[in-house]
């Protein structure tokens, strides 16, 4: 069979479908921020940013940028009516205290037990930097991961055990890749959707951990 990889926008669009009306959501820097534009207008989804914003909106019109109104990715944003500002303490209380419903993160690797690696490749001379990655990984009620299924060189990113330094243990609930959707469960990695034209066997072949097929369920 032959299949087509989902584009980054298509992964974002797919992930957006799993965000319910009324959800408080933190979209990690990078790929996950793309989800914002696929949230349907008839839903109230509340976007949280670590630097003290709740219910922020799309980027401002050109010339309307305010250097004091940025998100955690240091991009200019706007505020929706009903949005609010607060300090870093309250902002991470929202996260650590389990008040955020869904956090969507990028990943270097996800392990079969839900361990996430996304903050360090462990390269010996790299300058370490963690930001809010570890807080986001353990704090939200549900953690979604958005990632390509394999690295640029074809190595699996979904693995039986992490080889990169862990960001959070047992934290990932669902994985959206350019090939499939996977639920991380007590039984293992359960594949619920695969791109058209790809078989479960083919998917398993490019994955570094044992998958469970639930696409017929």
């Amino acid at each position: 069979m032959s299949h087509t990889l989902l584009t980054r926008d298509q992964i974002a669009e797919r992930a957006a479908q799993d965000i319910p009306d009324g959800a408080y959501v933190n979209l990690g820097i990078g790929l996950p921020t793309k989800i914002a534009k696929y949230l349907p207008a008839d839903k109230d989804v509340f976007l949280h940013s670590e630097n003290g914003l709740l219910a922020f909106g799309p980027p401002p019109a050109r010339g309307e940028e305010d250097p004091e109104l940025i998100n955690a990715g240091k991009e200019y944003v706007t505020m929706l009516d009903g949005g609010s500002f607060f300090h870093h303490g309250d902002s991470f209380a929202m996260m650590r205290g389990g008040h955020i419903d869904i956090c969507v993160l990028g990943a270097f690797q996800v392990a079969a037990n839900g361990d996430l690696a996304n903050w360090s490749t462990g390269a010996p001379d790299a300058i370490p930097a963690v930001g809010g990655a570890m807080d986001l990984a353990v704090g939200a009620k549900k953690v979604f991961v958005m990632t390509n299924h394999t690295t640029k060189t074809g190595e699996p990113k979904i693995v039986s055990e992490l080889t990169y330094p862990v960001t959070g243990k047992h934290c990932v609930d669902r994985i959206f890749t350019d090939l499939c959707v996977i639920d991380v469960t007590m039984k293992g990695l359960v594949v619920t959707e695969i791109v058209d034209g790809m078989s479960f066997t083919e998917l398993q072949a490019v994955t570094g951990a044992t998958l469970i097929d639930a696409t017929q369920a």
Partner: protein
Amino acid sequence: MINKADKDLKDVLSQIKDGATIMIGGFGTAGQPAELIDALIDLGIKDLVIINNNAGNGDHGLAKLLKTGAVRKIICSFPRQSDSWVFDELYHAGKIELELVPQGNLACRIQAAGMGLGAVYTSTGFGTLLAEGKETRHIDGKDYVLEYPIKADFALIKADSGDRWGNLVYRKSARNFGPIMAMAADVTIAQVSKTVALGELDPEHIITPGIFVQHVVQVQPAHSNVAAIA
């Protein structure tokens, strides 16, 4: 479209069941959600654990709730007052359990729950009867007691204004425990004097962001002219 202000008081409270742990805001009567407490009494549920700074005054509000026998245990800092006869009688009759917590530790343990902390070392209470049997630690020249978070199934609080996303602002010293209880309960129900349109509350002035509030119920202000609304 999310509207946290679309249910009436009775509907909202009906989700509270026997055995619930409930935080109730207020310091004295300031910030006490009187109408929510009255509706809670009407529910007729029992076996409740209540968290409040006090244990009721006179025969109204929290005292009235206690009087119905609905409360199994109260966690508070100052139960004994000149007009706390309802609690006094229950306590002396062995009909209510009391967990006495210094006021600042009460606040801090509620905050710890809202912040998702596992426990905190606090200096308050070290060496006293209220820290007996508790783990202690000497840190950087000072003695601390290990205290655990106080969480709740519900928080019933009073704010001045709220919008349909649950954003709240308070009024003067009625703010007291409201903002921190809202963060520490699974479901926070706020009674407000005014429901305002989205965007009417300045994002700089919102004290409790809507993420901490599940329901907003508008009630007739207690200090309004009763004759006028009768």
